[in-house]
Every structure is written in structure tokens, then in C-alpha cells.
């Protein structure tokens, strides 16, 4: 659209789309990811004077900032581009505020907001000193949009701008995860969860949302919710979006493992996540030395994905599996602490003593992973006659 043609034609076209309330096409005409940005006729060092007076307000300023941004991008000045795009977003905010009782321009808002985030990311990469400050600024612009949408509560359900909230929240979540400011997610999540449109948002947006909220729940050690959100995302994600499914699995697998469900090798193979396979085997066998080894080998993968600490927590599951083996081997309901201690030492925890072994067992009992009690005097663990090691999957 508009890959050729003059500036005046472009302006007229934009105006027509605006007058006919054609949000989709308007959005494309003001997108940074459309063909028209390669149209040299739309570039000039003096866009402002060329557009001014040639176009109705408030569309003129949106066009000016947009084309200034295009101009800056063409010379790869991402910082400059970011400034123009953020002004473009601010102009769209004013437009939205002026449009009462209608929401056809939400597509335009989505587009300029997404573009803002992408440009900010580019600018961030070019400026080693910024350290997330540009993205943080971008988030403020997005929040301005969010406020306009969230405040639109007098309009009829089908025309309300509140329908645009989730798209923005997803953009914001992406920013906050990237700059590692997870505490800022909470009010956004609350806003969506309490929204009456919670289940009416487009499925694609819901999947993105649940993916991030699931990851957040994982960091907050709320593994049950994490499982719920991430499973929804995984099951509903389009089957051809292998990349996204792989991303979801990166978090869903360790969460599932903590809850006692081990992934099949076929699955790991399909999504190129075999890094987890050695871990699965080690956790199943209660092999602590092997877990350490896997953590070392895939350290950068685990750290980059942000799951290193979760993997560390999988050792607790490994303890449980190891002690269950001891219990089965001893075939008695009164097991000496020494036996558990020896097992730990064989499996790589060489410096463990009787006291720490008791502490590890105590935690498993407290979590309900072992049914029984410890006798300090006799240095024994007395386990329940029935179901001494209940299946992990039955615990949550």
C-alpha cells in the first residue's frame, strides 16, 4: 500500500481512511513495517512544512511524527527514530481521548505501540549506556495509552476502548521482562484479571498474556498457577508456531517437573530441548552429582532462560526420588538416617552429615513428600505403612 505515489496522495489516502473509520488500513499506513516506508517520495528533511496545513488535525501531527521516524530509520538513527515514534504515540493518545464512544482506531494504537517497542529495542542495542532506560521510557508512553483505554468505562461493550487493554498489557509485559522489572507487572495483571472482558480478548493475545503471567508465577514460586497458565498457552498456541511452543516449553517443563511430571524424550526431541533430557534422568535417579554436572554444562542456557534457580530447586525432587529408592531397597518402615546419608554421599553430596540429612528429610515431610516422622533419639525415619512416598503429581 502506497509503496509508490506522492506525498500528497499519501496524505489524501490517510485522510480518507480516517474519515471512513477504516482502522486496519489506517494502521498499515502509519506502520513502520509496511511497504510505504521505502517510498522515497515520502522522505524529506522538512516533512513538517510539507504536511502542515495540507491535512486535517489531529491527523497532521501523527503523519508528521510518523514520517520523521521513517526518515530517521532510513539513516539508521534509532535514537532519533525512537523520539519521533514516542511523539507519534502521544499524538495517537490525544486522538483516542478525543474520540468518544468509538474504538475503531484501536488497530492504529496497536500498531504505533508495537512499533514504539521495536524501535526502542533497536535504540537500546545501539546505546550501551542506556541499560533499559529507553525501554522504560517507552513503557511510560504505552502506559499513557493504557490509561485512556482503561478509563473508557461508560461506552457500550462493543465500542469500548477497554477491549484494547490486553494488547497493551502484553506489550508492557514484554518490556518489563526484558528490562527485568517484574514487580511492575502486578498492577497490569490485576487490571486484566478483574476485567469483565477477560475471556473475550482474541485468543492470540490471551496466549501471550498467559505465557508471561505463567513465567511470573514461576518466579514467585507459585507453580500450580504457573502450570495452569503455561499449559493453556501451550495447548492453544498454533501448532505451526514451533518457536513459540518451544519458548513456552522452556518454562513449562521445569514447572511440570517440580510438580512431578517428567517430559517424554520424544517431546524434548521435537522441540529441540534435549538439554532437559539429562536433567530428567538425573532427577529421576536422584543423582545429585549428575544434576550439578548438567547445570554446569548448560549453565548459560539455563541462566539466559531464567530457569537456573528452578533447576536448582529440582534437587528437592531428586532427594525425594533417591530416598524412595533407599526405602524400597531397605524394605522396612523404619529407616536409619545413616542409610539416607550414605545414599546422599554416593550420589555426590559428599559433605553431608547426619544433621543435614535429617534436615533434608524434615523438609520432605513438611512438604508432604514423605509421610512419616523422624525420631531424633533413634536416628531413624519412621514412614507410614501406606503410601509412604505419595506420587508427586498427587500432591498439588
Amino acid at each position, binding site marked *: 500500500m502506497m509503496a509508490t505515489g506522492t506525498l500528497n496522495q499519501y496524505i489524501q489516502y490517510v485522510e480518507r481512511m480516517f474519515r471512513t473509520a477504516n482502522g486496519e488500513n489506517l494502521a498499515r499506513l502509519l506502520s513502520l513495517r509496511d511497504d510505504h516506508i521505502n517510498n522515497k517520495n515520502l522522505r524529506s528533511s522538512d516533512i513538517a512544512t510539507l504536511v502542515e496545513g495540507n491535512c486535517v488535525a489531529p491527523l497532521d501531527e501523527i503523519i508528521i511524527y510518523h514520517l520523521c521516524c521513517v526518515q530517521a530509520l532510513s539513516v539508521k538513527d534509532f535514537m532519533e527514530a525512537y523520539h519521533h515514534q514516542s511523539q507519534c504515540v502521544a499524538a495517537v493518545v490525544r486522538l483516542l481521548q478525543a474520540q468518544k464512544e468509538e474504538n475503531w482506531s484501536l488497530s492504529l494504537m496497536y500498531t504505533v505501540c508495537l512499533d514504539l517497542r521495536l524501535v526502542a529495542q533497536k535504540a537500546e542495542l545501539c546505546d*550501551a549506556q542506556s541499560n533499559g532506560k529507553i525501554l522504560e521510557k517507552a513503557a511510560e508512553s504505552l502506559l499513557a495509552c493504557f490509561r485512556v483505554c482503561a478509563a473508557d468505562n461508560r461506552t457500550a461493550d462493543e465500542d469500548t476502548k477497554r477491549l484494547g487493554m490486553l494488547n497493551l498489557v502484553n506489550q508492557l509485559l514484554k518490556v518489563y521482562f526484558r528490562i527485568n522489572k517484574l514487580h511492575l507487572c502486578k498492577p497490569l495483571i490485576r487490571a486484566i484479571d478483574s476485567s469483565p472482558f477477560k475471556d473475550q480478548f482474541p485468543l492470540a493475545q490471551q496466549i501471550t498474556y498467559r505465557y508471561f503471567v505463567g513465567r511470573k508465577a514461576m518466579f514467585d514460586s507459585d507453580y500450580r498457577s504457573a502450570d495452569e497458565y503455561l499449559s493453556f498457552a501451550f495447548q492453544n498456541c498454533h501448532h505451526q508456531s514451533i518457536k513459540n511452543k518451544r519458548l513456552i516449553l522452556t518454562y513449562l517443563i521445569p514447572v511440570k517437573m517440580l510438580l512431578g511430571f517428567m517430559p517424554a524424550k520424544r517431546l524434548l526431541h521435537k522441540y529441540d530441548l534435549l538439554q532437559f533430557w539429562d536433567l530428567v534422568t538425573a532427577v529421576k535417579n536422584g543423582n545429585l552429582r549428575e544434576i550439578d554436572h548438567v547445570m554446569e554444562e548448560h549453565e548459560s542456557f539455563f*541462566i539466559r532462560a531464567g530457569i537456573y*534457580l528452578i533447576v536448582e530447586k529440582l534437587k528437592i525432587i531428586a532427594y525425594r526420588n533417591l530416598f524412595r529408592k533407599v526405602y524400597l531397597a531397605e524394605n522396612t518402615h523404619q529407616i536409619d538416617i545413616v542409610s539416607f546419608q550414605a545414599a546422599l554421599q554416593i550420589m555426590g553430596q559428599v559433605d553431608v552429615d547426619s544433621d543435614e540429612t535429617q534436615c533434608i528429610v*524434615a523438609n520432605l515431610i513438611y512438604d508432604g513428600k514423605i509421610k512419616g*516422622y523422624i525420631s531424633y*533419639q533413634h536416628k531413624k525415619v519412621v514412614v507410614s505403612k501406606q503410601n509412604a512416598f505419595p506420587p508427586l503429581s498427587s500432591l498439588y
Partner: protein
Amino acid sequence: MCPQDEIWLRKREKLIHILEVVGDNFKLVKSYSRSAADANIAVPSLLRPYSVLKKTVNYLLHEVGKQTNVPVIVIYDFLNDRLRAVRQDMTIQRLLPEQCMELLEPIIRFHVYFAYRLCEKAINEFDPVLNNKLLLECVKWFLSCADEMDRLNRCFNTHKTALSLDLLNLEDSKTMCDRVLVECLYILCNIENYQPLVRYLGLPSYIKRNPRLKLVYEIAIANIKNDFIRVCRLSHRLCPLTTCVFVIYLPRLQRNSLLIMSSAYNSKQLTVPTTILQDWMLFNSVVDVTECCKHYGLNVDNGVQFNKLSFKCDIEAHKPKLNNRLTGGQIINLHEVLTY
């Protein structure tokens, strides 16, 4: 250390703190005032440059901090206010990151130390939450400066630069700028939180490999798994300031450990000797163990009788104790924590 206008004003209005009276003279230090809407705080003549701020911090912590003829709480309130004014001056003139680090590091030591020193005080005398808020502000500021330095170093391709004082060429400073210490404190002060550990994992390797920091990371990891035996054992190797933080955390650790044991050692007949608990959870004495167990509703006879139903979960944690086994049964003094 104090602008002339403020000296006149405070002398006239008789607003001189007892700690500003030195012999027959006054030694005033600029006090903190909130940036109100009509007050212009960005007046160059009211701001103290870096070298003066450095002297002020040294004077406050090393001279005023030594005073023994006024109650500790008065010293704390005074220093807290004046150091806050130092930070305000720093913010307004946007000092270089390395200068900020230099000034913040001793201030961080101050907040950590007094959180420990005043831990037995009542809430109306000392508010640990407020102190902790200021502490975290400083720590985060310090760390963001450190990150900025890291990035600059990377830009200039000078990898080996561990931040040290000789870079800054300061003659008369008594305190040192110890980044590893601040990284340690950040983890320990937020020991129940994942965020500092995530930060640790992403640190440049020359810092990550530091044995002091590794120790603190191990403690935090053991703590996540509720392995209190390991946590307590490792804690003996902490330095004085990290010990201060740990001593304050200890009651929460003990409470949590007792809760876990209430499930695991749950029995009507069997008990666990109090001496063992004293040893495991670093109680000062058997009396303390008994007192603490009773506080949480556990029965103590010959030993502690654990019962998961009688453990009071909703009760507040007991207060930390100044004299502690980890501190060698003595109170750590301010001078000691400022000079290593």
C-alpha cells in the same frame, strides 16, 4: 559541610543538634530537607562538591559515630538525617558513577550496621522498615552505578579492572569501596527473594567468582531449600557486616525451621534435646531455645516436644538479639565495620 545561609538560619532559630556542638564551637553539617514545590534546591552555592561530600561522610561516620556520651539512637537519627542530605546533594549535581559508589559504600555500611545495632529497640525509637527502605535505595543506586562502570569498562575493552580505589586517586579516605561487599549485602538483605540471585547469576565472572560472594550465594540457595543446617553452618564464615544482616534474619530462620521440625518431628512421646536445637539454629543458650519454643506454642520438658498442630503460625517472629554467638557474644562496634 554546611552552607553559610543554613548556618545563620540554624544559629538564629536555635536549631543546632547536640552532636554539632564541639567544645565551645559549632560544627554544623547540612541537614536534610524535603524538596518542597516552592523551594529551589538546585542552587549551586548550597551544594557541596564531591570532595566536600567525601569529607562530610568521613567526618560523620568516623568522628561523630565515635561519640559515646549521647545515646546510640540519637547518633543514628543525626547521622541518618545528615547522610540523607549528602545523597540529596549527590542526586542534584549528578555525580559520576564512581564518585557515587565511593560515597554510597560507607553509607550502606552505616545502615546495615545500625539495623543490627538497634535491633532490640522498640518500634517508636527505631523503625527497621524505614531504615531498610533507605538501605535498599542506596544499595540499588550503588549497584546501578557498578553496572554502568561495567558497561563503560566493556566499551573501553579493559576487562581486568576490578574497581579499586587507586583508580580514583584519593589521598585521605579511610573507607574503601568494596563492590563485592555490597553485592553480598544485596543478596543477604533480600534473602527470601529470587531477584538478587538472578542478578548474581548474570554478573561478570570476575565478581561472580569471588569467594565471599560465592559463600553468600550458597547460603541463599541453601535457604531457598530450607536447609537451615547448612545455612547456619556456612554463616560462621561471614564477615562482620554480613553477619549483622544475618543476625537480624536469624529469628525468621529459626521460626521457619521450628515450623518445619514441628511437622517432621511431630510426636506425642519423642522429643529433641534443647542443646541440639541450640546448636542447629544458633541460639545463644538453652534458655533462649526454651523461650523461643514456648513463644511458638511448643511444649518444652526435657527436650522440645514437636507438635504440628500446636505450632502458632500466625504469631509474630521473636526479636533478634544483639549479643550473639555469631558475633562472639559481643556487640560489634561501628569502627570495626567501617574499616575493612
